[in-house]
């Protein structure tokens, strides 16, 4: 009798152990990385915590920027030693349709942090899209060396590097060192600019990184955007599950996934590295992440359509024929329509 009991207990334990091992194994299998931690290239944008640690140590000019909206509440609780906080409102405003502000205004925001064209910067955030947003502006302005810490502060802490509390006062710089923007070709700012870019290159691929529900017009994704749909001609670059994430592009720990599989899904929509591709989302945050991931993968001609659905919808309200909207799945003619 006792033997049977013990057999049952041991059997249950073995089964539990098997399930745990299987689960952990699957979880690990799903984690892939864009960043090759043993071989980070100078042209890479996403870098590891170890790389950042070494960079700050070897190049004292390096400025680490914590990017987030607001007055840096979380930044003050814990940040990478020496890092300065940058409020995303320094580079965008509602009055400007949440688009990136003029280059000179943005350059001033970076000068306030002591950043000039030649300053190496590393941007990090708890939200990869915020980090990418700020990094994109730096890249567009023409900074020589822009990096994003893959995995943000969590990756830094996971590496067991120390953090500090409080605020770091930046030493301002006065001269940016070059005309801005230094890389104007990377940005399509407004809907009018997009129409002009399309006229210049009719093959330009307009890739929406919004969720499927947003893309097919089931939701606008934002309570402050009334209308649902996409700019006419848009294709779907699977990236987001909701309007606030890029879940298909990142691992659970916030690091960027190896995008090979996702690129295969994009290919079905005609989004390929050989084409001129303009990524967009609602207001340009998620698209900035897709921009840097593709850049790091070697895509040569990618752009950010910053205006996104927010700007296009506003333009559509004023002039529907110039800014037509599509609703539904373009691959399903019965459930697809163009509003113009």
């Amino acid at each position, binding site marked *: 009798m006792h033997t049977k009991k013990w057999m049952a207990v041991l059997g249950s334990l073995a089964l539990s152990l098997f399930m745990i091992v299987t689960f952990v194994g699957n979880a690990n299998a799903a984690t892939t990385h864009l960043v090759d931690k043993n071989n980070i290239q100078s042209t890479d944008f996403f870098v590891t915590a170890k790389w950042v640690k070494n960079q700050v140590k070897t190049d004292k000019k390096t400025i680490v920027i914590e990017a987030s*909206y*607001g007055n840096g509440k979380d930044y003050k609780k814990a940040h990478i030693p020496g890092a300065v906080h940058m409020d995303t409102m320094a580079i965008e405003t*509602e009055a400007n349709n949440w688009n990136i502000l003029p280059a000179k205004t943005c350059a001033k925001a970076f000068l306030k942090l002591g950043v000039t064209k030649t300053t190496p910067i590393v941007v990090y955030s708890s939200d990869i899209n915020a980090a990418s947003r700020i990094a994109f502006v730096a890249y567009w302005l023409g900074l020589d060396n822009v990096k994003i810490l893959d995995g943000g502060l969590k990756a830094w802490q996971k590496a067991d590097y120390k953090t500090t509390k409080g605020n770091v006062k930046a030493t301002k710089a006065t001269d940016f060192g070059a005309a801005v923007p230094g890389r104007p070709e990377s940005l399509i700012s407004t809907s009018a600019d997009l129409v002009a870019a399309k006229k210049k290159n009719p093959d330009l691929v307009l890739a929406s990184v919004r969720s499927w529900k947003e893309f097919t017009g089931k939701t606008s994704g*934002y309570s*402050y955007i009334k209308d649902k749909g996409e700019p006419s001609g848009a294709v779907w670059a699977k990236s987001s599950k909701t309007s606030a994430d890029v879940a298909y592009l990142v691992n659970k720990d916030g690091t960027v996934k190896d995008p090979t599989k996702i690129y295969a899904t994009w290919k079905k929509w005609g989004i390929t590295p050989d084409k001129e591709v303009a990524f967009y989302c609602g207001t340009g945050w998620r698209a900035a992440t897709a921009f840097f991931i593709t850049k790091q993968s070697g895509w040569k001609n990618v752009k950010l359509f910053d205006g996104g659905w927010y700007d296009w919808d506003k333009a559509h309200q004023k002039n529907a024929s110039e800014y037509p909207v599509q609703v539904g799945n373009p691959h399903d003619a019965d459930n697809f329509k163009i509003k113009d």
Partner: protein
Amino acid sequence: MKYFGYILIHLLQVISAVSIYEWYELYYNHLGFMRNVSYYTQELAANRGLVWLIRGVILAILVLSLWLSNRKRHKESGLLLLTILGLVVWQVAFSLKTTPIYYLVQGSIFLIVVLQLLLVSLQSNKKAVSK
């Protein structure tokens, strides 16, 4: 039971007062909240009819409050006058231009006034019944 009611109303007033701090906290630290508030504030400001209706309701409540507090002078009516003063000072000293969460703060202060008005009217009724 009556004390429970008074305590509950005052508690709600405290929560309303604390909510003012929370509005600031949320607005200046949460992107989604800030964008939503900006959007709905503009929507509200653009709806002139609704703005005038709100102003009318506030004015009516203020007049009623002043009348009640003047009719029955006691601790709670004194507090009512103080809350009215707070609302008036807020209306005069701040605007949508200086305070992006103007309507939210106004709403919280207004709720405090209304709750106080409720207290005063309850107390007035009670005294009337006891007479």
